[in-house]
């Protein structure tokens, strides 16, 4: 048996840097069975403790090994409503695969790749509508936002027999899966299919519904007949650096840049109506997955030079190893230990450069990482005509600001316990709106726990 994972076919870097098609192409059935055969089927299943939604990993892998792909996806779907998404964007190396026994001497089982295989297999089968719609109505739940936390809570609650209505502010459900993560990493068609599966479960999706404006939380509970509300509105408020020149034309928040391209399909402009301004040289500020997504998107939009500007060193880069590797392969340049101090512009208000300062690493700071310290007189200009700020997002304040009695912390995140309970009766919250910007799967885990608690709350209330 090989000590390495079976490789997943990919588009070559030279080809893919010019298109928005998916980079990783997925396992075929034969390779999937081979990879599944690597699993030792440990009785203790250490991999499961790394999964925030507790998928029965050994069981679904065993089904794939035996060629029972339908049974595999059924096993996954018991715990995970968005397997095709998770198989693509979960940081498995820090979760399930981190605990795989095979990882001690070689590479762990490609759990994420197998999950993706099973999910894609199911999506291709054109399942007849599974009639899981509850015969008995356990109650009504409103879910605010339609990102990973909300969709998971909605799916779980609908599965239990609740009537669930999801209110989404944008014109399409999916949240960050639609507006943030690029097509080449997570095809929007996949997201739409996963959402369609939730609709089959009976979940109602209301788009263009900005809660806090069209209804308040209190109105949903008091007037609209909902027994409980789940808030999963995410980290939707972009941070800027507060340095001079940030309002020059050509400076984007990563949120705006990615939303224009992903949700609004600016890469097809002028066939589509939304433009995006990408010059010859682009600087992306930040080192996380959002920064990698922005840099790789800029390449695909025709930028000749794309720089990642990050104030710490490669070791501290928060992006997933796979994303970093893909960005390097595609030709993104890395300006590490570098921080922008000013955006320079011309007399017409357009970006011409960013003034950067070199950094060195000092003692560990509050985050546990070594703190970057500016090196005096090391300033230089990096000539670019587009700048994307990918330095993080805060919580969107629309719901909190219109919900009396809902406590928030200093950063504006909703205060909630491990089960999503907030300070307000009947109101639950989970995902980035509670934790600050994190990963898709952590948000899904929060949605799952909240769904269980909502069930308990509603049944107690009705009893």
């Amino acid at each position, binding site marked *: 048996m090989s000590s390495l994972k079976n490789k997943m076919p990919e588009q070559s870097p030279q080809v893919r840097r010019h298109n928005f098609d998916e980079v990783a192409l997925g396992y075929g059935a034969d390779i999937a069975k081979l990879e599944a055969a690597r699993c030792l089927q440990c009785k203790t299943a250490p991999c499961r403790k790394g999964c925030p939604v507790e998928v029965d990993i050994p069981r679904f892998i065993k089904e794939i090994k035996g060629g029972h792909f339908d049974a595999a996806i059924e096993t996954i779907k018991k715990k995970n409503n968005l397997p095709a998404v998770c198989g693509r964007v979960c940081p498995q190396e820090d979760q399930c695969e981190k605990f795989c026994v095979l990882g001690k001497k070689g590479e762990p089982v490609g759990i994420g790749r197998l999950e993706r295989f099973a999910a894609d297999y199911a999506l291709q089968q054109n399942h007849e509508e599974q009639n899981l719609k509850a015969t008995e109505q356990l109650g009504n739940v409103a879910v605010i936002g339609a990102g990973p936390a909300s969709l998971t809570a909605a799916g779980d609650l609908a599965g239990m027999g609740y009537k669930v209505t999801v209110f989404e*502010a*944008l*014109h399409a459900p999916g949240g960050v899966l639609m*507006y943030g993560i690029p097509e080449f990493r997570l095809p929007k068609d996949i997201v739409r299919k996963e959402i369609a599966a939730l609709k089959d479960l009976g979940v109602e999706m209301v*788009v*263009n*519904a*900005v809660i806090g*404006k*069209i*209804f308040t939380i209190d109105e949903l509970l008091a007037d609209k007949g909902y027994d409980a509300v789940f808030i999963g509105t995410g980290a*939707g*408020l*972009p941070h*800027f650096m507060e340095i001079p020149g*940030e*309002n*020059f*034309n*050509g400076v*984007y*928040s990563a*949120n*705006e840049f990615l*939303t*224009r391209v992903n949700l*609004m*399909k600016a890469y*097809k*402009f*002028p*066939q*589509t*109506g*939304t*433009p995006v*301004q990408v010059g010859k040289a682009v600087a992306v500020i930040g080192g996380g997955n959002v920064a990698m997504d922005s840099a790789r998107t800029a390449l695909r939009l025709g930028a000749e030079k794309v720089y990642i500007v990050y104030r710490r060193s490669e070791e501290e880069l928060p992006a997933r190893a796979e994303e970093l590797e893909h960005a390097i392969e595609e030709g993104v340049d890395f300006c590490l230990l570098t921080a922008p101090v000013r955006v320079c512009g011309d007399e*017409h*208000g357009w970006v011409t450069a960013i003034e950067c300062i070199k950094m060195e690493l000092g003692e560990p700071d509050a985050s546990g990482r070594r703190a970057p310290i500016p090196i005096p007189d090391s300033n230089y200009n990096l000539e670019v005509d587009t700048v994307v700020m990918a330095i993080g997002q805060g919580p*969107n*304040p*629309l719901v909190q600001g219109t919900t009396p009695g809902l406590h928030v912390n200093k950063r504006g995140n909703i205060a909630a316990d491990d089960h999503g309970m907030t300070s307000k009766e009947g109101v639950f919250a989970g995902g980035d709106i509670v934790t600050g910007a994190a990963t898709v799967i952590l948000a899904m885990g929060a949605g799952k726990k909240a769904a269980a608690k909502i069930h308990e709350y509603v049944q107690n209330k009705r009893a």
Partner: protein
Amino acid sequence: MYTVTKIEELSPGVKAFVIKAPLIAHKCQPGQFVILRIDEDGERIPLTIADFNREAGTINLIFQEVGRTSRQLGTLCTGETILDVAGPLGQATHIKQFGTVVCIGGGIGVAPVYPIARAYKEAGNKVISIIGARNADLLILEKEMAAVSDTLYITTDDGSKGCKGLVINPLQELIADREKIALVMAIGPVIMMRGVADVTRPYGIPTIVSLNPIMVDGTGMCGGCRVSVANQNKFACVDGPEFNAHEVDFDGLMTRQRIYREHEKMEHRFEGGCSCHR
């Protein structure tokens, strides 16, 4: 889907749509806006709510056919639909009894001023309105504004209606005549709003303007609509759209409104004709 139930051409290239949107009509307040997207490939554009009818469940939008989306919108016929309308967005106008309020609307800006002027009037204010346009043909909502104003001044650039000149001229005269003005509300082209701010600043007259920068989501998510107010970045979609005119960086706003000038030229070449008669 949101159905267009009535269309009126107010002046050449300026149309008023009545749109069935019961939830928005139920909640909206003067000063708020919606974001609409005509079809699957369309962009999201903000439009201020020009009026609303809660009983009928309708909102009114008034727009000038100047960009790709507004021109496409102008091709819709009664009974046709708009795919997405989200709102009401932004903060509502702060309405109370101030005393004498001067409401100024320039060009298409008269449309959003109208429900605000009406609300001021209903709150017991003395409302003096000044509306202006390039010429008499382009002047909109004259009757409506007259109905909610104690006094209405009209200006046109060419003198074809009312006084020849700019909307700031009657404002300057009011100030010179020692009219006790408690508040000025001005909506129109950025250059006009900047002019109004310059007139009232030396007198310390509180002045509010409503800004219309480029937006995508309209819910605070993209930051594209950021504008410097009192040297701090504000998001027009959630913090505004109304701001203290004396604190707004109008020059920065004008620069940011030009971001897609080159793209607009590309679009012009790409655009086809009217969709409903194709």
